[in-house]
């Protein structure tokens, strides 16, 4: 067991201990202790609810985020490559970007109803902008030397994109993908509190509404955090290292 896992695990255990002690000492009857939360989560697993909610949440993220990647990477690269076009479109992107994706919620419900598509659309919006911006800036900042070398060896424009520009921007795009994923996961949970009746966000809002089950509220929060951590770790592991 190495230190990189051991030390964070110790931090987690210590915080867990503080939490437990705080609940015991304060004598609260509303806020759950760690064993309460564990029992609540086990009940959810036994009733086969937790697995289904996780699956639904991941499915929505996969759709919305996946669509954002498929559209955002080529769009961003295009805007970076054709500078005039980029200059024309960029202010609009920068204007849309600071609007919280949740502000689109009423519109999403009008357009898509109370269906899976509404939260998927919000996740799509939330992930799209960081990806487009990363790809655009990435292409703009490809070292001119690489492009010059590509031209010197007689690459066609298509070859240039595939063999020089794309590999050169990949590390930057990856950073954008990772940031976008973090935003997507945050937005997903918020979106599920409003538009749908399954998923981890729904779990939290439903547990509170249906009898103030704060053990399930906190349990849901922990599950969201742990899954977020796991997926971010996956991104970190896959991140390409291509500095010179």
């Amino acid at each position, binding site marked *: 067991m190495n230190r990189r896992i051991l030390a964070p695990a110790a931090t987690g255990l210590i915080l867990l201990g503080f939490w437990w002690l705080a609940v015991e000492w304060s004598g609260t009857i509303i806020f759950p202790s760690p064993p309460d939360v564990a029992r609540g989560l086990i009940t959810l697993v036994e009733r086969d609810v937790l697995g289904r909610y996780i699956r639904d949440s991941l499915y929505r993220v996969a759709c919305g985020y996946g669509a954002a990647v498929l559209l955002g990477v080529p769009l961003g690269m295009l805007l970076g490559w054709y500078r005039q076009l980029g200059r024309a479109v960029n202010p609009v992107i920068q204007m849309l970007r600071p609007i919280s994706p949740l502000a689109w919620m009423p519109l999403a419900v009008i357009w898509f109803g109370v269906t899976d598509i509404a939260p998927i659309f919000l996740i799509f919006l939330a992930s799209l902008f960081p990806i487009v911006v990363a790809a655009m800036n990435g292409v703009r900042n490809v070292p001119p030397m690489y492009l010059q070398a590509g*031209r010197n060896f007689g690459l066609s424009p298509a070859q240039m994109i595939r063999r020089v520009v794309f590999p050169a921007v990949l590390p930057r795009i990856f950073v954008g993908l990772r940031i976008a994923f973090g935003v997507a996961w945050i937005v997903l949970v918020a979106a599920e509190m409003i538009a749908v009746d399954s998923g981890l966000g729904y779990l939290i809002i439903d547990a509170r509404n249906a009898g103030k089950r704060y053990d399930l509220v906190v349990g849901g929060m922990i599950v969201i955090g742990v899954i977020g951590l796991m997926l971010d770790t996956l991104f970190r592991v896959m991140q390409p290292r291509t*500095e*010179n």
Partner: protein
Amino acid sequence: MTKVAFSGINMRFASTEVLKDINLDVREGEFVCILGPSGCGKSTLLNIVGGFVQPTSGEVTIDGERVTGPDPRRIFVFQERGVFPWLNVEENIGFGLFRLTDEEKRRRIAHYIQLVGLPGFEKAYPRELSGGMKQRLEVARALAVNPDVLYLDEPFGALDSITRLQMRRELLRIWQTEKKTILFVTHDIDESVQLADRVVVMSQRPATIRAIVDVDIPHPRDLSAPRYIKIRDRLFGEIGLAHQV
């Protein structure tokens, strides 16, 4: 026989005159150093002959053919940062060989890995190589497409002084084996005397050719021979420096 001919090259960026009436003939197989102070426009001159920049007036011809853009028959070598970090040594050398059969490509890659002394590093990525090795890799990538002319823009500027000396020896060895015409831009007087058949001395901006100095010393050159020192001193004089610190 004349390989590269500059005639009446003028270059201005907006209101700044960078190059003024440059005329120069480079013979086939010749090693020419373009020597001048930093920012004098010698890199611009190399970019013009490389086809990356169009001169304001005048023209460059190679084998009598006017240069209108970059061409794989003439390869530009940058400081070592020009190698592609996402490709390993083999892939970098093979980068320009996409028109060849796999068999021929393999053969060339193996040959140039040998020539620049990188055997054992075929699968290594640039980040795993030292500065000198990256520079050799870039030279190999350029040579692999079998160009007639190499343009080198201060290629050893970022290396430490010991590696730089080794790299000059390497480059001379490669030049003698491969019989290329070389245009080499530098601001280092010693470097130019060690390498070149002729040194073209440029003035401050707007750059003109101040002098063309023949370095008629056979290789390998003795850096303490009177002849070497005499030519070096002449270049110091042409640049406008007494060689005292």
